[in-house]
């Protein structure tokens, strides 16, 4: 049992150590190194897990292939973010160390969400992840837009939590169980879904839609993404979504919910509107973080196709897309974080002009990530998108696949605009010097993006439980 729960314990212990160290001796470098070591150890402890899968802890947490893989991705993401965000956080005048404290507790919440098999653990994980995020979003306390983003996120996330609790309560009221698998069994015995459960599911989906930023629950996304520090935006887009998505995936798969037409149509509607609205809104933006925010809405719309496709195909495509999306957006936002000087992030597309002259390596990583998000060949995003289209087509969701294809075309327009600017020469340009460790982290990202874009065979095989 200890082995299976080791990653959680290690993160928890790291959290406590970091907290104690911060209270007695403030040192940014020391805190970062400690957090990094703890997260790395948690990642290493995951490799031991493979022998004893799957494993259940008191009906609360489940340790299986899916959770191990995604917890691994989350830990890896945070490792990269600690490295690439160090420079960024260092520019903040005071109270740098609490950042790591909050980040680690948010990570712990996300890990619990990924592994949860019970409504209670899911809710617990969600809150543990969200509450530190309220503070993290507003971490640049002196800047107005960051505080504004924090307040917006706090209010709306609070409302969505209320919705979630109400939804879960309704489902509990009808089925008498909090356990995901018992609930699924209860549902599968029903021929017609009672309106009680349906209302609960609706509220649950609304709250999940908020977390994943699906249209029409997306309004918070651009402002929060814009105002948050770049590493936190990266965290929000990747780790922040993995947990919610996986719980939704488990629930749909166990209970075979997509065979119930109301749920199917709700999800299809969310998918279609997210794809179209997200992409169309991104078209007219010139603020890079806002573009990426709107594009993340569209990406979540694509991901829903995998949920609707269901079965083994849907599972694989969804997992692969989720992981690739997380890695690509980490690459993009890490680059933004590294470009930040004197707490001033580059905002407008024009500020990215001549990045290739200033730092060829950063420009290559940034554009590879952007192109991976766009689904261009030679990058992992291409294979992920093809895989998603395959899953959709195998379930005969032709309309959704067609929309996926059309929207990829639209998406290309705004992604290419960013990359065009990066390679556009400018008269004057000062070189950017990257710290060595950050360069290594970025090199790691680009190797993964290209490797999975060219020869994904082995990884995809490994993805199958």
């Amino acid at each position, binding site marked *: 049992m200890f082995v299976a729960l080791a990653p959680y314990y290690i993160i928890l212990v790291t959290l406590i150590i970091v907290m104690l160290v911060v209270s007695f001796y403030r040192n940014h470098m020391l805190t970062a190194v400690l957090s990094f070591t703890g997260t790395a150890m948690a990642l290493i402890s995951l490799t031991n897990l493979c022998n004893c899968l799957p494993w259940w802890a008191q009906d609360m947490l489940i340790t299986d292939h899916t959770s191990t893989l995604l917890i691994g991705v989350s830990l890896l993401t945070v490792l990269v973010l600690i490295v690439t965000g160090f420079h960024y956080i260092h520019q903040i005048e005071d109270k740098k160390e609490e950042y790591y404290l909050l980040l680690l507790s948010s990570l712990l919440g996300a890990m619990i969400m990924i592994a949860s098999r019970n409504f209670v653990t899911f809710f617990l994980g969600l809150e543990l992840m969200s509450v530190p995020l309220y503070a993290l979003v507003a971490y640049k306390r002196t800047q107005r837009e960051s505080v504004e983003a924090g307040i917006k996120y706090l209010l709306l996330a609070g409302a969505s939590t209320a919705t979630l609790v109400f939804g879960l309560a309704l489902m509990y009221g009808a089925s008498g169980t909090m356990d995901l698998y018992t609930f699924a069994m209860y549902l599968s015995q029903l021929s017609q879904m009672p309106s009680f459960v349906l209302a609960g599911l609706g509220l649950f989906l609304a709250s999940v839609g908020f977390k994943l930023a699906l249209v029409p629950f997306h309004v918070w996304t651009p402002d929060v993404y814009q105002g948050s520090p770049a590493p936190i935006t990266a965290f929000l887009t990747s780790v922040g979504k993995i947990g919610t998505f996986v719980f939704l995936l488990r629930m749909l798969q166990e209970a075979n919910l997509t065979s119930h037409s109301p749920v199917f149509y709700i999800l299809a509607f969310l998918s279609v509107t997210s794809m179209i609205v997200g992409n169309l809104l991104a078209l007219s933006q010139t603020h890079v973080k806002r573009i990426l925010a709107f594009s993340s809405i569209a990406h979540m719309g694509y991901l829903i196709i995998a949920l609707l496709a269901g079965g083994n195909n849907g599972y694989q495509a969804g997992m692969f897309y989720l992981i690739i999306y997380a890695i690509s957006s980490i690459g993009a936002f890490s680059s933004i974080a590294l470009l930040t000087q004197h707490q001033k992030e580059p905002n407008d597309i024009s500020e990215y002009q001549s990045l290739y002259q200033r730092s060829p390596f950063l420009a290559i990583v940034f554009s590879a990530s952007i192109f991976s998000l766009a689904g261009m060949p030679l990058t992992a995003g291409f294979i992920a998108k093809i895989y998603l289209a395959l899953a959709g087509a195998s379930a005969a969701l032709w309309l959704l696949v067609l929309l996926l294809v059309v929207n990829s075309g639209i998406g290309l327009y705004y992604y290419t605009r960013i990359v065009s600017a990066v390679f556009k020469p400018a008269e004057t340009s000062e070189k950017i010097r990257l710290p060595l460790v950050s360069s290594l982290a970025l090199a790691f990202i680009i190797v993964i993006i290209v490797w999975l874009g060219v020869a994904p*065979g082995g990884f995809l095989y490994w993805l199958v439980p």
Partner: protein
Amino acid sequence: MILLTILSILLLCAILSALGSKLHSQIPRFISVLGLLLALGLASVNFPTAITEIFGSTSFDYNVPWIAVAGANFHLSADGLSLLFIVFTLFLGVIGALLTSKISNPGYFFFHYLLLLSGIVGIFMAADLLLFFFFWEMMLLPMYFLMIKYRELNDQNENTPFKFLLYTQVSGLLMLLGILALFFIHGRQTSIYSFELSDLMQTTLSLPVAIFIMTGFVLAFLVKLPVIPFHGWMPATFSASPLAVIFTGILVKTGAYGILRLAIPLFPEASVLFAPTAMAIGIMTILYAGLIAFSSNDIRKIAAYSSISHTGFIIIGLYAFNILSWHGVIFQMIASAIGVGGLALLGDALYRRTGTYDITGISGLWSRASVFSGFGLVISLAILGLPGLANFIAEFLILAGTFQQSIVVTILASIGIVIAAAYALRIVQKVYVGEYRGPVELKDLSLREKMIMSTLVVLLLVLGLYTRPIIRSTEKVLERTLILDSSQPEPLAPGNDASVKYFVNPQID
């Protein structure tokens, strides 16, 4: 293994030239030329064996699982047709690399240049549909990166690379939909889920479905060719970078190859139904592009539209379903790339000497730069289809083949040749003859330019007079494709086959 070696040489040299640029600015070019020559040599040596092989199961196939869970293989193959284009691509690649001597960031340039060439070569090799699509999309990226870096700084048209990427990507995505649909239909029928071209050719499709899927494929190919309603990106590309010439010469030919290799064999019946529309598009392309070429003064624009006009002939020839016209198509693809490429090279040389692309701005070049003007005259004559040069063979074969299908189409297409004569001679008349008007100092072609131009001209001449090697190398493939296309309107009688040889080269056999 040979095919994999060719691809690997190109990719390896791409990386080496990116790394080598730090040592010396001439290293990338040296490595590229060396690698391209090596690949060209390898491809040429294996050319004779390839002619008799059947695509998809040749002795030098390379087949390993790629995305095994989805049933996609990394399957490279080559027959006479594809190896001919590989050789031609590499040959133009060498010329392009030789031309590029003074360029900023040589490492960046040659890295993308070789990546682009390996993408194009990959298209000609892919025997797996998903792999084909991969290469198809892959070649767009380096092209795009070359365009954004080397577009002219004072170019008003900021959106050229953009337009290019959008047009080609979106149409490519439609092809992806078609590929996926074919994959699943075939999988349901035979329970073999495979992207293999030879497997998918066995799929039985009802006519409406076939038309639907074919539209996806054909749209992607027509955009790449390009034909008239979809040509928006092409003149823009030509005016963006002088080197785009070489690329577009090869790049656009992948569209015709796609139709011949995929669209017609996969959807024979739907293709026959599509033929009248294709003919109409072809005629429109020939005439409309020809007229624009005639009315424009920018020499690059003339080159671009003359290239588009030539693709009109390609479309007509392809959808005439006739061995004669298909041979013509192959010739047209090669001859047009050389002719138009030569014209655009001259345009670039003209710009470097006089600072203008405008053909009304200068005249009487012959009195100052006779070698320049001589080559200019030959290229113009090639474009208008003078007998003795390769373009004549191409257009003649296409028209002779089409004549058996539709006399009206042939007549209309012939008008295109007259227009071609008009715009080609207009260049001669404006630029080369007359009283001298231009800069005081005017240098003739340099030794390197002379050598490159004479290579092109010699090639045009040789192909125009001695057509047998090309006919021979693709004959088997084209005949097989024509037989596959079971519902061709008029099956050729055995006697008709001899007419091919008679028209082309009376002495053989």
